[in-house]
């Protein structure tokens, strides 16, 4: 059965996008700096969600997982948003990279200049504009390429029942996971960690990855629940929901583990060059959000999703996923804002409007790509196992 994009879907998506465009225009008129940083927050967040879609599909193929065959079209469709985030990321970097990323200032690398910064100059081999652009092209290029190849094999499989699509997808998954292992870390350093140019953390790649996976899972769950509610994907039962719920629960804890490790080691060692990252997040009114981040992304999903029955219940799962979806936006917000706009931050019309705009665009693209193929794949070798999934 194919999904049909309803008039309501389109209308809501268009209204959200219109609100987004208005909020972005308003932001550029009143406070362009804050608006650009804000675009980076939303674009990175939705890029992470889209990337999680492709990553999830790859992991399922690599592990030859049986249970996930019925739900795999949802993460596949999420991946189709990647080209949009690539375009927006390039726009952000080309038009406003100079203000967002401190290391783009040429004088920092010039020993004769009074602005010369020895520490940043030492990072010149990695943090320079040409290499940054090359990394960006490579990352987005490979992600989009693999997303398309997975999608092509998956749709071709619906038409003929041959095993070769499954086999080829496994090969693709193996290659993609190696690329993802490197590129998820480098993109996290590039887009987020390099904002605080002096600072570095070896946990950062993992920490961003954990956020990526958990926010992607929350969107997968929300989409599955929506489709189920509309009468599609009736094959997905509480056993499959239990499994995606376990992913959401487990990776929320994993995210907390990394968040806390990064914080605790730096807090304990108390070295000035490391600790200022958290000092920035303790001042200018960020303190409440910083503590809220921990509660909303750990305590709330932990309590809501701990019991087996709640993971199997659509309402509880919806609440858990919705909390995580909002909470991880806040996490990305806290990774970007203190380093870019410092005290100028706010969560108001600009932030909420831009978020809605991105969400509308995301809904538009994901729902249209869901409509292009069967919501449940047809000749997937694991489909039969998945339909009988019982835990």
């Amino acid at each position, binding site marked *: 059965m194919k999904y049909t994009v309803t008039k309501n879907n389109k209308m809501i998506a268009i209204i959200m996008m219109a609100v987004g465009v208005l909020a972005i225009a308003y932001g550029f008129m009143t406070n362009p700096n804050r608006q650009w940083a804000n675009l980076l927050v939303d674009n990175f967040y939705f890029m992470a969600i889209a990337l999680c879609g492709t990553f999830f599909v790859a992991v399922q193929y690599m592990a030859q997982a049986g249970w996930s065959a019925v739900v795999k079209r949802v993460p596949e469709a999420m991946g189709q948003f990647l080209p949009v985030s690539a375009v927006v990321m390039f726009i952000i970097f080309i038009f406003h990279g100079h203000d967002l990323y401190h290391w783009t200032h040429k004088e920092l690398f010039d020993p004769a200049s009074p602005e010369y910064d020895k520490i940043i100059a030492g990072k010149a081999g990695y943090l320079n504009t040409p290499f940054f652009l090359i990394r960006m092209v490579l990352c987005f290029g490979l992600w989009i390429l693999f997303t398309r190849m997975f999608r092509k094999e998956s749709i071709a499989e619906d038409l003929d029942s041959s095993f070769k699509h499954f086999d080829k997808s496994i090969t693709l998954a193996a290659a993609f996971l190696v690329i993802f292992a490197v590129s998820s870390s480098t993109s996290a350093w590039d887009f987020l960690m390099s904002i605080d140019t002096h600072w570095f953390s070896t946990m950062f790649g993992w920490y961003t990855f954990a956020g990526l996976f958990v926010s992607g899972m929350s969107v997968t769950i929300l989409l599955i629940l929506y489709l189920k509610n509309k009468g599609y994907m009736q094959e997905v039962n509480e056993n499959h929901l239990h499994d995606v719920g376990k992913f959401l629960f487990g990776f929320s804890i994993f995210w907390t583990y990394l968040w*806390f490790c990064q*914080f*605790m080691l730096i*807090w*304990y060692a*108390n070295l000035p060059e490391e600790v200022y990252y958290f000092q920035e997040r303790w001042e200018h009114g960020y303190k409440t959000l910083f503590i809220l981040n921990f509660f909303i992304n750990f305590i709330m999903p932990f309590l809501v999703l701990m*019991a*087996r029955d709640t993971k199997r219940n659509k309402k509880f799962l919806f609440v858990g996923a919705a909390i995580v979806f909002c909470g991880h936006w806040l996490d990305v917000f806290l990774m970007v804002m203190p380093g870019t706009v410092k005290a100028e931050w706010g969560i108001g019309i600009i932030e909420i409007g831009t978020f809605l705009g991105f969400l509308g665009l995301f809904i538009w693209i994901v729902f249209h790509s869901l409509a292009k193929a069967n919501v449940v794949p047809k000749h997937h070798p694991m489909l039969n196992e998945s339909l009988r999934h*019982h835990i």
Partner: protein
Amino acid sequence: MANFKLVLAIFDDEQPLLAAARRLKEKHIKVKDVFSPFPIHGIDGLIGVPRTRLAICAFIYGATGMSLALLMMWYMMLHDWQINIGGKPNFALYQNLPAFIPVTFESTVLCAAHLMFWTYAFRSKLLPGVVAATPDPRVTDNKFAMQVWATDQTEGEIQTILKETGASEIR
């Protein structure tokens, strides 16, 4: 009050055993227990095994471990002999909390895992020195056994069901 007696049936495979369990359930005949060399998927619902309460135990044990660890560290580091480590605030538990989290976490996991193991072993009568309650030693190798509660009225019916579904021995 009718006289209950146990009927023991030995099966060579799990599928006939599942079929027997299904038919006994239809007749509302109570199965006492099933013994198998490996877990049989879906048998719990058929023979009326209630959901495990081990998860509740795990939560209680975890909470105990957490409290004990915090109490221990509060007593050692803050109450009995205050130690200034690296200039960290050392007069209140909540100010020092991040430094105490790793030990608290480990203690939570240690208590939860160990006590859950012992609870499980105790409930399953698997403690050292306890004689195994298997009705037939072959259920640890290749046979599947089912114990059914029978009365004088139902015994004949049970025998028929067990025979029809393919029990290799009935005692």
